[in-house]
Each structure stands twice: as structure tokens, then as C-alpha cells.
């Protein structure tokens, strides 16, 4: 990381320069706005640490100028005179932090490390984006079809924000995988991701699971329990099957989202939480509202960013890619030497309707893998697993199918030798 320090006091300037080098970055320091303008051109800093008051100008103006030529630059402003006006001006100019003199080395280290961590996360997002363009992969999501390209685009945008997301889609379309990918691409990537399925637990217990409880707050509460909101503090909480939550609890959830405070069952005080909420349902939300399964006010609060996942039948061109991806995953775990696919077997996958979506495909691939007994996955194995697909007419071969089938040809050829 290249860091430019702009500070007129020599001892502070040199102290900062050496401290930044100690933290593993390249640092250069100058004492005036004029020198800073030249150093921005030559040194091309990624981060600027600027004093507000410079002998020949304003440090915030220096940063603003640096951002004009490269909007990805970050800035930290330092000043000996705190004022609301200069803080507001600094934030408007896009600086990440505002430090007051006298500078404490520990404080500087925290601010600097937070900044470099965020920048490295952003660079990870960039590399994931490149990976996506090359391989059709975003995190654990896979797809080259148009519907998935649109989903990837939405995920990348949503990941930058802290706003709530509501994922809708049929069972098995990968709602939790999408939620995890959003978390992984977000600034919260290094913080907890906690998933909770509201449909998997008795409605009477959901409140204590989500918000926690105090000892003795109800029969059986023999010790204090931290809820999922507290566990996810600083990170992301994924609430699946949100419409299975009772209406009364939906009101409490709405309150938590608005106040950013939770109260354990039986507690008398609220606790502040910083949680990004991603929720999901396999129902049509509008219909769930009409049926009284989802409160309308909560829906609007959750649905800041809606993501509707396509069924597998709506993106059939991704089936061979996904099938091969799952085969590789399973091969890594089980190492049975199942090295690829018979092209006719892949065509059969293409003929099935996949009502259970990606989850069903993964299960079928796993069973086929086990039954293949080494070598490649052949058509006859799939005929027994997908009897309906065996009699359906084959669709025209798609590009990903041809691509996935290539390794199989090599495998078959090598066996003949």
C-alpha cells in the first residue's frame, strides 16, 4: 500500500512516515500542499494522511484533488483543532477517518489497519469479479446463463451496501448460498455469518433463539443464552423461511431492525446490535401478505433489495456446469476416481425438469457418483436415477455441455490405451 503523508510539522511527519512503514506499507511524506500535488503525480498514493491546516493550503482540498484523479483513494484527516464544520467537510470529501492530535500510535494503527483491511477486501471483490467473468463463478455460485449473470450483478451491488436483502426463490435454488456470497463480498466478510431457519424450530422457541434469554426467564431457562442477533453482531444474520415466524414476533423483528437494539427474553435492558439482515422465503411475498403470513410493514423493511432466484429449469444451460462442479467437489471429498461424464449422461441431465432445483441436481450427482464405481458417470446410471428423463427428447446441445463433456473424452481415450 502506498501512503502519502501531508503534514507541516517535521517531527510528526517523520514519526507518521516511520510508523506507517512499520505497519508494512510504503510511505512518503511532504510538508506543503504544493509538494503534495507533485507527490500525488509521482508516487501515486493509494492512501493520503493529511493535516487540515497546511502552510500553503487546506489538507482536505489536497485530498479532494487526489480523489479527482483516482476515486478509489482513501484518506485520513488529522487536525489539532476539532470542529464540526471541518469534520463534515472531510466526510463530504470522502475521507475514511478523522484523527485528533495529539496522535496516539495505537489509535493510528487501528485506523490504518481498518483501512488496509477494507482495501484488501475490495481487491478480493475485484478478483472475484474477474473470476466470475472468466469462469462463471461468484463465490460458491455458478452459472453462465443470462438469469444468473443478472443475479451476480445484483449480488455485487448489494454486497457493497448494508441494506436488508430479501431473497425469494423455490426450494433448492440456493438462497443460503446467495446470502453467504453477499456476506463474503461485503465489508463484513471477516465477521460472523449466522444462518437461522425460522421454519425448523417451534414458533414458541424462535424468540429466545433469535434474541436470547436470561436465566430463569421461563421454565427450562436454567442459564443465560445469547441469541442469534448477538452472535451475528458486527456481521450478517440470514433468516430463512421468514414467513414461518409468528406475527407477534414479526413486530419484534421490525422493532429490532428500526432501533438496532435487541432485548433478551426476561431482560430489562436493550442491547445495541450491528447486524446486516438477509432474509429469505420460498413463498410469493405478496401472497404471504394476503394470507396473513407476512406483515406488510416488515416486508417493506426487509425488501430494500429484492433478489428473485430462477429455478434450475429457467437456466438449463447451467446444468452441465453445475453437474461437473458437484462431481469435482464430491471427488475431492470421496476420491473414488470418478473423473468425468459420458456426454449422453450429461444430455440426460438436461432432459429432467428438476423440481428440487440445484439441491436435487447435487443429490443426483452424488448418487450417480457413488453408483459410477470409478471411471466416468454413464448414461445407464442416470437412467435408473432419472427414469422420466430417459424417455424425453434431447434438447439441442448447448455450449457448456460440449465444454464439460471434453474431459470425459480424454478419460475414455486414456482407458482404451
Amino acid at each position, binding site marked *: 500500500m502506498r501512503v502519502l503523508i501531508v503534514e507541516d510539522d517535521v*517531527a*510528526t511527519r517523520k*514519526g507518521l512516515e*516511520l*510508523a506507517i512503514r*512499520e505497519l508494512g506499507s510504503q510511505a512518503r511524506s511532504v510538508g506543503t500542499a504544493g509538494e503534495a500535488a507533485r507527490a500525488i503525480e509521482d508516487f501515486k498514493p493509494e492512501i493520503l494522511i493529511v493535516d487540515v491546516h497546511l502552510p500553503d493550503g487546506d489538507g482536505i482540498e489536497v485530498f479532494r484533488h487526489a480523489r479527482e484523479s483516482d476515486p478509489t483513494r482513501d484518506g485520513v484527516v488529522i487536525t489539532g483543532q476539532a470542529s464540526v464544520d471541518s469534520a463534515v467537510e472531510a466526510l463530504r470529501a470522502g475521507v475514511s477517518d478523522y484523527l*485528533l*492530535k*495529539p496522535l496516539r*500510535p495505537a489509535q493510528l494503527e487501528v485506523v490504518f489497519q481498518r483501512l488496509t483491511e477494507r482495501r484488501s477486501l475490495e481487491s478480493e471483490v475485484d478478483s472475484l469479479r474477474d473470476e466470475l467473468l472468466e469462469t462463471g463463478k461468484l463465490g460458491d455460485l455458478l452459472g453462465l446463463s443470462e438469469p444468473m449473470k443478472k443475479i451476480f450483478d445484483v449480488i455485487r451491488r448489494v454486497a457493497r451496501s448494508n441494506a436488508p436483502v430479501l431473497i425469494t426463490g423455490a426450494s433448492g435454488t440456493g438462497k443460503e448460498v446467495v446470502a453467504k456470497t453477499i456476506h463474503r463480498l461485503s465489508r463484513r466478510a471477516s465477521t460472523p455469518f449466522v444462518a437461522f431457519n425460522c421454519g425448523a424450530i417451534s414458533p414458541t422457541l424462535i424468540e429466545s433463539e433469535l434474541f436470547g434469554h436470561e436465566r430463569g426467564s421461563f421454565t427450562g431457562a436454567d442459564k443465560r443464552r445469547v441469541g442469534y442477533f448477538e452472535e451475528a453482531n458486527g456481521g450478517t444474520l440470514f433468516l430463512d423461511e421468514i414467513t414461518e415466524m409468528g406475527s407477534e414476533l414479526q413486530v419484534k423483528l421490525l422493532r429490532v431492525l428500526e432501533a438496532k437494539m435487541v432485548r433478551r427474553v426476561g431482560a430489562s435492558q436493550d442491547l445495541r446490535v450491528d447486524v446486516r439482515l438477509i432474509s429469505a422465503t420460498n413463498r410469493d411475498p405478496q401472497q404471504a401478505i394476503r394470507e396473513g403470513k407476512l406483515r406488510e410493514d416488515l416486508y417493506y423493511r426487509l425488501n430494500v433489495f429484492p433478489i428473485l432466484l430462477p429455478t434450475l429449469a429457467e437456466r438449463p444451460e447451467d446444468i452441465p456446469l453445475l453437474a461437473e462442479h458437484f462431481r469435482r467437489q464430491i471427488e475431492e471429498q470421496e476420491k473414488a476416481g470418478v473423473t468425468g461424464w459420458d456426454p449422453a449422461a450429461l444430455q440426460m441431465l438436461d432432459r429432467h425438469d428438476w423440481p428440487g432445483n440445484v439441491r436435487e441436481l447435487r443429490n443426483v450427482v452424488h448418487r450417480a457418483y457413488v453408483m459410477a464405481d470409478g471411471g466416468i458417470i454413464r448414461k445407464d446410471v442416470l437412467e435408473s436415477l432419472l427414469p422420466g428423463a430417459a424417455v424425453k427428447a434431447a434438447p439441442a446441445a448447448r455450449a457448456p455441455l460440449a465444454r464439460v463433456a471434453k474431459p470425459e473424452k480424454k478419460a475414455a481415450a486414456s482407458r482404451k490405451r
Partner: protein
Amino acid sequence: MSDSLVALRRFFHDLATPLSGVGLHLERASRLAARGEDPSEAIGVARRELERAFQLFERGREALLSTTGESSGSA
């Protein structure tokens, strides 16, 4: 803002600068020493900055005492 408040703000601003130098250079000295390297230069800068802070502090005290009519030498 009254003149005395302006002077006070100025005083804190001036004092904060050498104190930053003291903090940064002492931290550097301690890191150098921990690595078995010579920290004397960093300690020297920290000492000079501390001296600057003392001078500013004393000047501030003189100014304060002169406005209240007391002598800086009184016990």
C-alpha cells in the same frame, strides 16, 4: 468566541503537535528496542518534542498567570 477561548484553542492546538511527535517517536523507539536495534535517534527526537511541549506548556501557564495577576514564581 471570546479572546480567551480563542487563545485556549490555540494553546491546545500548539501543544497537541509536539505531543504527537513524542507519542510517535517513543512508539518507534520501543519497536526498535524490541528488535534489538538502536533506538537512540528516535528517543532523541521524542525528547526534543517533549521539550517543545514543556516550553509551550510553560508559556501557556505564564500567560494564564499574567491575566490573573499572579507571579509565575509564587509557591
